[in-house]
């Protein structure tokens, strides 16, 4: 199995604040890797390195290398648009556009220059099916996305990310704003998506990390404390901080 994602000695500074301290990790294709840790530990910042979302923030400095398929995404001359097509992202809160359900899914295709109507229609349907939302919305594709429930909106956002066929899916606490039923739907979906995508997920929820992920990384104060298979991390962690965190003693 080839490595598809790899970071080597990544440091990130917000101005003077050292947010990520020398993170080195390898993630396997078609697996789910969970990033856990208390608030402010850098796990979301780390996640946002892979599609260069941190570029939007002023005064960010990044050192080290982040390789996807052997290519450093922070090298000069990297096409960010191309990168973001390959690395989809689902955010913490459902954030559909103020457009119809159909147009939300089609957005990524349209901004990437796809104009073929049939192609877009097919892709919208397929993405919605992949996100297990098709049955619920197939009769109201022309309705505003705001009319959906929170859980449906989040699945819409997943479908939107899938529509441009990324290979990697970044999920930043995708279920934190949802009720338990919607959460379990999203988790089922992650299981399903693993077959075709490499998924990196940030979560606050220990049980969720244990349920959905193959590998787990524990972050604390900008350090990668421990990284291993989810089974190992949750059954016999090496580090006392990891143990304290997953048993709920702090965090």
């Amino acid at each position: 199995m080839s490595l598809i994602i790899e970071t080597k000695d990544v440091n990130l500074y917000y101005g003077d604040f050292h947010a990520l301290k020398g993170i080195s990790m390898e993630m396997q294709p078609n697996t789910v890797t969970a990033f856990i840790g208390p608030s402010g530990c850098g796990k979301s910042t780390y996640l946002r390195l892979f599609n260069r979302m941190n570029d939007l923030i002023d005064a960010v400095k990044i050192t080290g290398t982040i390789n996807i398929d052997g290519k450093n995404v922070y090298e000069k001359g990297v096409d960010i648009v191309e990168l973001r097509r390959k690395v989809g992202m689902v955010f913490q809160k459902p954030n559909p556009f103020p457009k119809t359900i159909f147009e939300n899914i089609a957005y990524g295709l349209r901004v990437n220059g796809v104009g073929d109507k049939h192609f877009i229609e097919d892709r919208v349907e397929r993405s919605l099916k992949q996100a297990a939302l098709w049955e619920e919305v197939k009769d109201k594709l022309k309705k505003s996305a705001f009319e959906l429930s929170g859980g449906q909106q989040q699945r819409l956002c997943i479908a939107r990310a899938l529509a441009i066929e990324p290979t990697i899916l970044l999920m930043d606490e995708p279920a934190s704003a949802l009720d338990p039923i919607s959460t379990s739907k999203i988790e089922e979906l992650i299981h399903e998506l693993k077959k075709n995508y490499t998924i990196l997920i940030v979560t606050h929820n220990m049980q969720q990390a244990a349920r959905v992920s193959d590998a787990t990384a524990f972050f604390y104060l900008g350090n990668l404390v421990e990284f291993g298979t989810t089974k190992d991390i949750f059954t016999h962690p090496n580090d006392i901080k990891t143990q304290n965190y997953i048993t709920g003693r702090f965090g």
Partner: protein
Amino acid sequence: MRNSIKRFVEKISESILFLSSTVTTLSVLLIVIFLFKEGLGIFNKDPIEEGQMVVINKNNPIRKVVSADIKNIFDQNITNWKQVGGKDDSIILFRMDDIGNYFTEEQLGDTFQFVPQCLAKLVDSIPGIIAYIPSKYFNKDFPARELPMEKITVGSFIKGKEWFPTAQPAAQLGVYPLLIGTLIVSLGAILIALPLGLATAIFMAEIASERLRKILKPLVELLAGIPSVVYGFFGLVVIVPFIQQVFHLPVGETAFAGSVVLGIMALPTIITISEDALRTTPRAMKEASLALGANKWQTIHRVIVPYASSGITAAAILGIGRAIGETMAVLMVTGNAAVIPHTWLEPVRTIPATIAAELGEAPHGGLHFKALFALACILFIITMAINLFVAYISSKNKMSKR
């Protein structure tokens, strides 16, 4: 003891607050009532100065003439009764000033005591006469017929194509040219200000660095603080001659000049409101767009502007509102000709400018005075409709975004 003082002070401040809010509300209401009471006073009145009347020979078959024709008759644009539906007979005009042409001083008497008799004889003897005389001379025995005029109605007021409130004997009170003037100037202003303002707002909200924004924002707000007479002055000295030269016009004071000046004046409103609206676009929504591989420009025009569209609409409408009500600057640059413009490059006169220019010369309580109040009522209705529309849009917007 201390407690009772405290309670007393509380009571006092409460009543002061109550009183001031009551006074404010009442004064606003009073202004509106006063406005409409005066303004509605012109309707169902004869468009003729009080104490005056128009009479014709009693054998003249004409029963009624619209006030526009009366004016044309007295301006000698209509010279034959045939043209207003009467017999083929030329029209003889008579104003009180003309009486010396028909009678000698002796005939009139040294204290003008014989004027009524003279008038009676004159009107009786000339079949084609139309005379504008004080109504005190008109009594049962007067051998002539009053020529009744059409009363001023809401329809004639709004549709009337001529604004000439000092015309004698029949005042021409048609708001149509003023209304068109106001609308054409405001529409032009918004056509100029909206693209410019929106572009600036997008630049400030999305593209400019925080530092540049901190310089630009106060500058734009400064623009709102400049007195309108200064804008008018600037328009008169810079824009008017410029337009005159560029378009080879006889005069530069045109609707277009007004639009340019008003457009500049509406800019701060449009920029600040639409910038605020653009900045309310959640970061998450921008990030979602960028994460899907959209570039900055695609994100702006496909996500941010649609998200802020209702705020931008409100900005545009408030900008129009400001343009419609603006007085001084428009008065200075539009040339103030109360005619219906056919192009942007003709002088026009707006409603507020008319009120400002004419109120000083209109006798208090007279027809002209009341007509100006009626103009003010129309302006009030327009701006109120605009404000209600903005309120409706923003309430609808709140609901759809929850």
